[in-house]
């Protein structure tokens, strides 16, 4: 069976991370699986965990009264789930629900934060891996906002 550290170092998010840092983050990690339909976290709960996804699919949802829950994004194998654990006040903004059986590595958010605080080198490594994900998510949101596929009737030929 693969060790936790070897699973972590082969995940795209941590790819190329130096050995000492790998050991540091592995110290905060544990194997966690979610069954289909299971909520991983809920909006407004404390964001105390950072997940990397090994297998499966998670949907990020938002629900407003009187409406069906809306899925805004799905993340799956090779991707990460959540960055609220590193941004004060450490609260989730959406609901995260496993769409199918999902295997993750979960990192204790507080543990990671403390280690980043103690070793800014690790903090820089983590943030420079997180920021592109945040950036891409923002780009994607803007694209989704544009509703690029939508042609209103009477606008076409």
């Amino acid at each position: 069976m693969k060790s936790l550290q070897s699973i972590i170092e082969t995940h795209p998010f941590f790819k190329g991370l130096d050995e000492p840092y790998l050991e540091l983050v592995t110290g905060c990690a544990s194997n966690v699986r979610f069954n289909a339909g299971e909520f991983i976290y809920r909006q407004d709960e404390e964001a105390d965990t950072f997940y990397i996804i090994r297998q499966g699919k998670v949907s990020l949802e938002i629900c407003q009264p009187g409406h069906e829950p809306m899925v805004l994004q799905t993340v799956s194998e090779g991707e990460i789930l959540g960055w609220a654990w590193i941004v004060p006040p450490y609260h989730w903004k959406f609901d995260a629900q496993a769409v199918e059986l999902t295997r993750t590595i979960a990192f204790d958010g507080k543990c990671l934060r403390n280690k980043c605080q103690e070793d800014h080198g690790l903090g820089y490594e983590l943030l420079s891996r997180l920021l592109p994900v945040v950036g891409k998510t923002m780009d994607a949101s803007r694209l989704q906002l544009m509703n690029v596929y939508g042609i209103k009737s009477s606008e076409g030929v």
Partner: protein
Amino acid sequence: MNFSEPDPMVPQPYKVRQIWQETHDTFSLDLEPKGPSLHSEFAPGQFNMLYAFGVGEVPISISACSKNGDGWIHTIRDVGTVTHALHQLREGDTIGLRGPFGSAWPIDESKGSDVVIMAGGIGLAPLRPALYALMESRKNFGDIALLYGARKPEDLLYTDEFESWRGKYGVQVRVTVDNADRTWSGNVGVVTTMIPRVNFDPLQTVAMICGPEIMMRYAVLELRQNGVSEENIYVTMERNMKCAVGFCGHCQFGPAFICKDGPVFRYDRVKPLFSLREV
């Protein structure tokens, strides 16, 4: 007068062999020539001008050959007066057709390479014949991936074909929508996020993209970031079109006429104008 070639401005009569609904706002027309077929050949990516009697004419990509006999299938979104009139057609009705016109997807040029097809919305229609051509000589190509994005799950086209594309031909089909409710168990997110989720060798990959201009701009960026070269990326352009043969001037995009130089362009050839406004 040269009678060997029919006047490209005069539609030929075609009969509606079959019409069926694809999604809530999109339908397909199977058209067969009345009388002798003038040209049944077409290259994936080409389009026809369809004329709804008394209403007008609209450029529509060929989305497949007819299942039986001469003619072509066109997948059309009902979004305006002409497409709405086409939607009202019934089997046996006659319409006018001119074509096929335009440039084609680089099927032969892709031999020996991996192929990444990216489609947005109705953009899958002109790419479907390309996919068929790739699957027809499957062994000539490496990995094939189809990344397909739409607004909502109910807007997805040709969903009943995905399984055979996956199973029979080993095409990596990844589908995503911009948003969905909980009944959708597939991906949610923009189509570009699917790129890292499929296998292809970026140095030996031909990418074919069709969708809204904004979607294609992001797709090109993402593919280039992944190492696909500009000369191996093909996009389609869309502009107002009247004549389809380069006479009317409407569809100009810089030096190119979309109708005869396009609609499929190699990205590096349109790059200087691709993100310029109001061209």
